[in-house]
């Protein structure tokens, strides 16, 4: 919230609408995603210990605790926590892994569970009051996960079909005439080996980034518009607008929660499809 306040009125005595100082509305910028480091390593291309690091630590603790609590004393007749864990497992298995990989997917269940719960927790950090920054809005974290899936995709493909078989399956579409191959192979290479891992990471990052930005704009606008001291009708107008911004903020927070779940689902579903495809070979 401090960042939002700063963004809407840095150096302005009265950062609200109808003020006497001529301070305009400053929309929150990308600086939201560059929290001031608490510990700067002073090395190029590093961020140091920031809010992201703290949130990541919280996520790790939360997700680990979730799985430890739900699996502790796992019994044939499940208790409340175990049921929640089993529901999560069943959801990931039936909605993401089985559609993408079929029965092969059971081997990859631990990985997919890790991905889903990890991503979901990182996303949901964006609407936890007081924290309010989705960890996945920093491209580094989605990139780690998409890279893991990308490496696994190659490893599985090579293990199943050999290096040549894997590369050929991904570069040479079956059924296409030979003369078109010089065009098709580079396109397939870029599509499958370059763009796909990149879009896999960027899709998650961009939705979380944009969603957080949207919420920040609603919050900042609500803050800026709230000026009951403006006097007369202006107070009423400002408070009314501010209320609308608050409603928008709440509605979009709920919507964000949905998007957070959806994006975690999409990421894991795609990972499952990619690895399933590597197992199958030629597409």
């Amino acid at each position, binding site marked *: 919230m401090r960042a939002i306040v700063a963004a809407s009125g840095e150096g302005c005595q009265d950062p609200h609408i109808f003020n006497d100082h001529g301070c305009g509305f400053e929309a929150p910028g990308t600086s939201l995603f560059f929290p001031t480091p608490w510990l700067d390593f002073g090395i190029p291309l590093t961020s140091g210990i920031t809010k992201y690091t703290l949130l990541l630590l919280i996520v*790790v603790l939360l997700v680990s605790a979730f799985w430890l609590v739900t699996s502790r004393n796992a019994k044939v007749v499940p208790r409340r926590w175990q049921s929640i*864990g089993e529901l999560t497992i069943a959801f990931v298995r039936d909605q993401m892994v089985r559609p993408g990989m079929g029965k092969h997917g059971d081997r990859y269940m631990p990985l997919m569970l890790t991905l889903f719960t990890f991503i979901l927790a990182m996303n949901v950090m964006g609407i936890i009051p007081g924290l309010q920054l989705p960890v996945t809005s920093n491209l580094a974290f989605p990139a780690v996960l998409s890279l893991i899936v990308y490496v696994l995709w190659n490893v599985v493909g090579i293990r199943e079909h050999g290096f040549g078989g894997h590369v050929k399956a991904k570069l040479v579409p079956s059924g296409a005439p030979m003369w078109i191959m010089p065009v098709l192979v580079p396109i397939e290479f870029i599509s499958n080996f370059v763009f796909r891992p990149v879009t896999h990471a960027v899709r998650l990052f961009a939705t979380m980034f944009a969603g957080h930005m949207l919420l920040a704009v609603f919050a900042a606008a609500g803050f800026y518009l709230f000026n009951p001291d403006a006097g007369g009708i202006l107070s009423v107008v400002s408070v009314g607008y501010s209320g609308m911004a608050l409603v928008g903020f709440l509605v979009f927070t709920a919507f964000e929660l949905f998007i957070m779940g959806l994006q975690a689902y999409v990421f894991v579903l795609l990972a499952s499809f990619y690895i399933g495809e590597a197992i199958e070979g030629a597409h």
Partner: protein
Amino acid sequence: MPAVIVAAEQENILRIHWDEFTFGLIAFAVIFAVVLKMWPRMTSALDERANQIEGGIERAKKAEAEAEEIRQQYREKLEEAHRQYAQEIDKAREQRAAIIAEAREEAQVEARRIIDAAHAQIEADRQHTLAQLRTEIGALSTDLATRIVGETLSDSAAQNRVIDRFLAELEQTGDPAQAEVR
């Protein structure tokens, strides 16, 4: 200028800073380790449950089959009992008919016997009466004749002849009376 470049680099939203990348990798590894640790426990519980449910279903099926068998047995027994009952009834009915027929026959025989006996008795009585009448009438007639004729018929042969003739006449005239007796 380098400071500007660094600042621009710092504000690039598509940055992938290697320290954050490493933290992400470590975080993933930690969570993955936890999930790998809990996975066997969860799956064993799930598998065990699946086994038990399958076993339960099998047991239920077996029990159902057993119950069906017993029901079949009972039904057969019941049918057997019904059949026996019907047989008993039939037998009893036959026996009743036989008893009734026997009793009727016996009764008829008895009745015939009684009737025959009565007839014989009547016949005997009649004969007896006839004989008695014959002697009495003879005596009376003799008496009467003696008194009327006033003499004793000394010759018994003549006496008998007279009596027989008298009786023959008497029988001829007494025929209607005799038929009434019969």
